[in-house]
């Protein structure tokens, strides 16, 4: 049991942290270069091979490791030392509850592709996500620097504000799926719903002429059930990560570098890693909640097993499902990473008052309204 958990943990951590993370630092530079119509990230070379700048992540690591690790005078040494670790650890442990595949039956053995199947998984994500605030606050407070402190105060106010709205914007999703367990949410999205089914319910429409309309189905994904919740949640979780356009806590033109001002070498690298690691983690969370998790649109697990299981056996069908589902999940994560990167290089930084106004005056009222609209619709359509 513990070996199985360890293997699953190593798989997800290696894919997200060992594969996606270095690639993202490259994509960040390369996509910026493409979007700004310039040549970029092509200087790091090894014996003349530049490989389109793919060596830059390795060069980053070598550089960050070989720099001097400084602590400014007057700083609180202990807090200054542990703050970067406090920033990074929550980003990694969020991965524990993300289901990157369903439950598969191989003979007697059951394989469930999630590290920890907690029944309050969504609450775990929110709780762990809020721990990341401490990293920013401790870093700014301990480094005895005016810019650092301003950055950390801004970071804490921004992150706790968006935490409230992030929590409220997904309540509609809990109401649709009736659970907080992420594996159950993913299973619930592994199906389709009839787009015009409500016409039958409201007007009593039926009959052959209705059949052509009724033929249109959509995957029962969060993005189709809760379109407003999707936009609100994505905004909030991106603001939580403090990346542009929400990077007021570290805005270079105002605060020099913000809360990680007095950090150098790999302990700056830890903040940098945490920020970049959050991008695929956000991708995984959004994919699980709103984009169907590991499910394949219009092709449920039962369909695959039904088509293949008879001819090739149960074990083969399970294995095929597993590979397709993990592939589908990772594809959705890549899609969300691309989206975040495109947004990051498209929008300019918001002013701090705009960031806070967006949270308290726009997203908070809309998400409360969304809860009650969803509630009324769910009860009405359930009859």
């Amino acid at each position, binding site marked *: 049991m513990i070996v199985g958990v360890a293997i699953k943990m190593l798989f997800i951590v290696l894919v997200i942290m060992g594969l996606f993370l270095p690639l993202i630092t490259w994509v960040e530079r390369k996509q910026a270069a493409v979007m700004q119509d310039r040549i970029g990230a092509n200087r790091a070379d090894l014996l003349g091979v530049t490989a389109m700048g793919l060596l830059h992540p390795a060069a980053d690591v070598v550089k960050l490791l070989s*720099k001097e690790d400084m602590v400014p005078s007057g700083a609180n040494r202990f807090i200054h030392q542990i703050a970067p670790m406090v920033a990074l650890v929550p980003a990694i442990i969020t991965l524990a509850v993300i289901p990157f595949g369903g439950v598969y039956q191989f003979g007697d053995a059951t394989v469930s592709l999630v590290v920890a199947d907690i029944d309050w998984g969504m609450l775990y994500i929110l709780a762990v996500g809020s721990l990341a605030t401490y990293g920013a606050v401790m870093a700014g407070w301990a480094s005895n620097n005016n810019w650092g402190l301003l950055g950390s105060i801004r970071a804490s106010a921004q992150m706790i504000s968006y935490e409230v709205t992030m929590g409220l914007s997904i309540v509609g999703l809990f109401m649709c799926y009736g659970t907080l367990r992420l594996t159950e949410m993913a299973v619930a999205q592994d199906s389709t719903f009839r787009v015009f089914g409500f016409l039958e319910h409201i007007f009593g429409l039926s009959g052959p002429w209705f059949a052509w309309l009724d033929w249109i189905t959509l995957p029962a994904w969060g993005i189709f059930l809760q379109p407003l919740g999707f936009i609100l949640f994505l905004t909030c979780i991106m603001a939580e990560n403090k990346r542009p356009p929400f990077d007021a806590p570290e805005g270079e033109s105002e605060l020099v570098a913000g809360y990680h001002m007095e950090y150098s070498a790999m302990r700056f690298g830890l903040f940098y890693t945490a920020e970049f690691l959050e991008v695929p983690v956000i991708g995984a969370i959004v994919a699980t909640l709103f984009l169907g998790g590991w499910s394949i649109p219009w092709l449920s697990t039962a369909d695959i097993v039904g088509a293949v299981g008879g001819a090739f056996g149960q074990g083969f069908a399970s294995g095929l499902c597993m590979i397709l589902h993990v592939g589908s999940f990772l594809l959705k994560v890549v899609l969300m990473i691309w989206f975040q990167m495109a947004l990051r290089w498209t929008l300019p930084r918001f002013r701090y008052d705009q960031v806070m106004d967006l949270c308290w005056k726009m997203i908070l009222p809309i998400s409360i309204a969304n809860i009650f609209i969803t509630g009324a619709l769910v009860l009405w359509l359930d009859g």
Partner: protein
Amino acid sequence: MLAEFIGVLLILGLALVVAGLMALAPKLLGPRREFAEKQEPFECGERQIVSPHQRFSVKFYLVAMLFVLFDLEAVFFYPWGALFRELGWFGFAAMGVFTVPLVVGLLYEWRKGALEW
């Protein structure tokens, strides 16, 4: 029940080891040439005139207080949301009653300017 947390503990251990190694590595690999000027906190080329540990704007306290209120309210929404279909219209109405003071409080803060920056 507790078996589910083995995964959480394992990944927590892994995260601590990764973060610890990353934090420790530059101490072993990096150079170490300290002198007083270099250790000074960065202040745009000036000496630090004011200590950072002073008062800061009260707005941040207000946000923190609002956070405590609204996050607590938000926590009440989760179990209600998960059990929503079983509770039916009664649960819907009950949550409506619960939310009215919340919204009134939000409007009050808004009118009083607590949300202005």
